[in-house]
C-alpha cells in the first residue's frame, strides 16, 4: 500500500523571536501540520548555507528559515545577513534544479504565533504539491554501498 506523500521540512528558528513564536503557537494551542521539525539557533544570522544543503541532501523535502523581523533582531542587524545568504542560496539551488518554494524565509516576532503557524501550514501544502525531493536516492544510493565497503576497507594493512 503506497501512503500519500507527507513532506518532511526542517525548520530553523532563532532563539529570541521565531522560536518564541513557535512556543506561543503551542501555548495558544494553534494547530498546524506535523511535517516541520524545528532546530533552534541563537540567531537567524547563524544560519550557515551548509545546513540547508545538508538538510536537502539528507532527505528533507524543504527547509524553512525563520527569524526576527528586520529592525527587530535581538542582535541588532544579523538577520540581514541571513536574508542575503538566503537570497544567494536560493539562486544556487535554482541552478541545481531545486524549486524555490522548497526553501522559504519567514520573519516572525515572538508575538506572531498564529502567523507562524499559518506560514508553516502554507509551506507544507506547497511542498506537498511539489512532491518529494528524494535527493539522497539519486546519486547516493550507490554511494552508501560504497561507503560501507570503504569502512570495511579501513584498517587494511599498508
Amino acid at each position, binding site marked *: 500500500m503506497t501512503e500519500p506523500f507527507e513532506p518532511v521540512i526542517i525548520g530553523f528558528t532563532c532563539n529570541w523571536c521565531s522560536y*518564541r513564536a513557535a512556543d506561543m503557537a*503551542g501555548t495558544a*494551542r494553534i494547530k498546524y501540520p506535523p511535517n516541520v521539525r524545528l532546530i533552534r539557533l541563537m540567531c537567524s544570522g547563524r544560519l*550557515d548555507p551548509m545546513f540547508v544543503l545538508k538538510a536537502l541532501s539528507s532527505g528533507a523535502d524543504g527547509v524553512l528559515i525563520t527569524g526576527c523581523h528586520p529592525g527587530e533582531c535581538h*542582535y541588532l542587524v*544579523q538577520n540581514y*545577513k541571513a536574508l542575503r545568504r538566503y537570497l544567494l542560496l536560493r539562486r544556487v539551488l535554482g541552478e541545481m534544479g531545486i524549486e524555490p518554494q522548497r526553501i522559504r524565509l519567514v520573519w516572525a516576532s515572538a508575538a506572531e504565533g498564529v502567523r507562524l503557524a499559518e506560514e508553516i501550514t502554507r509551506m507544507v501544502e506547497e511542498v506537498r504539491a511539489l512532491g518529494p525531493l528524494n535527493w539522497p536516492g539519486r546519486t*547516493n544510493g550507490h554511494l552508501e554501498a560504497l561507503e560501507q565497503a570503504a569502512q570495511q576497507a579501513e584498517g587494511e594493512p599498508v
Partner: protein
Amino acid sequence: MTVESMSQTNHQERIGVYVCHCGTNIAGVVDVEEVARWAAEKLQRRGVIIARDYKFMCSSLGQELIENDIKELGLTRVVVAACSPHLHEQTFRTACARAGLNPYLCELVSIREQVSWVHTDTAAATEKSKAVVAGGVERVLYHEALEPLHVPIHPATMVVGGGIAGIQAALEIADAGFPVYLVEREPSIGGHMAQFDKTFPTLDCAACILTPRMVSVGTHPNITMLTWSEVTDVTGYVGNFTVTVKKKPRYINTDLCTGCGICWEKCPKKVIDEVFEAGLGYRKAVYTPFPQAVPKYPVIDHENCTYFQKGTCKACEKFCPTGAIAFEQEEEYLTLQVGNIILATGFDILDARRVAQYGYGRYANVFTSLEFERLSNAAGPTSGNIVLRDGMTVPKTVGIIHCVGSRDRNYNNYCSAICCMQSLKFAHLIHERTGATVYNFYIDIRTPAKAYDEFYQRVLGEGTIFCRGRVAEVSDVALNPGEEGKLVIQTEDTLAGRQRRIPVDMVILSVGLEPRQDAKEVAKLFGISCSADGWIIEKHPKLDPVVTMTEGILVAGCAQGPKDIPATVAQGAAAAVRVLARIQQGQISLEPVRASVNEELCSGCRICNGLCPFNAIMFHEDRMVTEINPALCQGCGTCVAACPTGAITGTVFSNEQVLAQIDGLLMHNVEPGPLEPAAPA
C-alpha cells in the same frame, strides 16, 4: 573528505533519555511510553543506555530520576523531551550539575509546545516526537563541557533619564552606598511628573511629592547629576561599560551661580515654552524650566538668545551679581566607566494634530491632556485657573475625550494605561475649580489599581456625565440651536443607542502615550531592541520586566510601556535592586555561548570583521589574524556562519551539533528494523 556517515556507527557516550508526560499535556497526544521504549531500542547504538518516561520531569522526583541515573549509571549525556527550553533548560541543567555532570551536557527538546500542543494526529505526533528525540540524541553527542564566563562588575551605575523612574532608581542605588551618574537631557530633572498638577487617585500635588525626591537627588553625595546632557556613545559589556556623555553648554558657570533668578527676570527675550509649558506659556531665553528645578542653575537657549543671534543685549551678564554668565562656554565630553545602565527615558504624548477630526490645532479651545495639566497647575501659565485659550473665560461646559490615538488601529493599537484615570481626575478638578458641566466620552473605564475604582465612583457621584462611545468629530459648525459659538462633540452613545451632539466650551483630548521620538536611535546606541511600537523590549513581559536582553542594560518606567506612577516607581526600584545585586556579587556569570577563532586556520581575510554589531571582533594587524573578545561576544553565531574556512567555531550551537541534529531529525541515526528502511520517515 569522504562523505561523513558518523550517525551510522556505534558511539561510546552513555546517554539517558527522559520523556515527560507533563500530565496529559504531552501524554494526551503523544504516546510517551512508546517514544521512550523506542529510544532505548533504536538509539542504543548511538549511546542511549536508558530511556524513561515520567509524569512531570520538572518536579523534584523527575529531576531525581536524572540525578540518580547520572550517579548510578555513569551517564555522560542527558536528553529530556518535554516542554520548551525557555521554561526548563535551566532546571535540567542544574539537576545535572547537582549530580556532578557538566550542565551543558544536557539537551532539552520540546515535544509539547512544538508537538503535543499543536498537532492533532496522535500517530504523526508520536512519530515526530521520535524524530525530535533522535535529533536531540544525535546533537548531544557533540555537546561540550563548558564553564560560564566570569566578568567583574564596576560599582558605578548610569541612569539615563531624570523622571520619577530614574530618580527612584538613582536614590535606591545611591542610598545603598554606590555611585550613580544621572543623565538628563533637559536642564532639570523631574520629567513629565513635574508638569502635572494633581496625581490620581490621591490627588496629591505632583510637585509636592516629587520635589523632595528631586532635592534628595540633587544633594546626594553618591549621585552625580548630569543635566542638560546626553549619552553619545556606549561601548563595552556588562560590568564594564564605557559611556561618553555630552554636556551641552549652559553658558552659566555653575560654580558661581546662586540660582537667584535675576538673569531671567531681566532677560528681555520671551520665548514660547514648548517643553515644560506644553506651548501654553512663556519663558525667557535664559531660564530654568520651573521654579523647583534641580539643579537650580539656568541655561541659555542659544537659538533664542539675542546675544548669540545678534551680538547685542547681555542683560543677564550685566545684572548677574556673581558674574556667573559664561557666553564662551563650550560643550564638554565626559568618558565614564559604569557597570550597569538603567534606561528611564520616559514617553512622549501622541501628536494630537494627527487625529484631525478632533480639531486640535484648528480650534483654539481643544486642549491636550498635558496642556490641561499646565492650565490646572497653580504654578502654570494661568496660575491654576482653568480658562479658555483667551486666558480669561471660564468654561461652563467641558468635554473630555478618552482614548485619543489609543486602542485605535489608525494610530496606536495599545491602551495607554493612564488616560482613564487622568480623564477622571480632570473631571474632578474641573468640577472643583469651575463648577462647569463635565462630559467624559469613553470606550471602557479602566480603573484597575488600588483606590482607582473608588476614585471613579467618587467622580460619578460628583455629577460628571459619562457617555459611552467613540467621538466621531469635534466641530464648530452649529446645526442646532444652542450650538452657536460652541465646540460640538458629535458622538455615539452606545448605551442609549443613539447619536449625540453635545456643545461644549472646552474639549480636552486624553491623548495616548507614545515612545520618545528618538527611541529607536537610543535603542541602537545602547545595543537593545524596541518592539514594533517603539517601547523598549524587556527580557520577559511577566517575569523579567525591568531587564533587557542585553546584559547590563535595564529599563524602568514608561520607556518600557505606558504605566502609572506607582508602577513606574516600582520598576525604578526593581531595576535598582537588580543592579545592586550585581554590584554586591562583584562579578557576573555569562552564558558560555560564544564564538572563537582558531588562529592557526585564520588567514586574515577579514570577511568576519564587519559583521559584529557588538564590536567583539578584533583584527591584529601584526599577526594578520582575527580574534573575538569573549566578554563582548553575544553568541549570535553570524561570524561562525560567515567564515569561509571554518576557522570560527561557536559553542552550544556548533556546526557539528546542528549537522548532527539535522541527521537525527531525519532519523538517519536510527537502527533500521527488519522490515523498516533506514531512510527518513
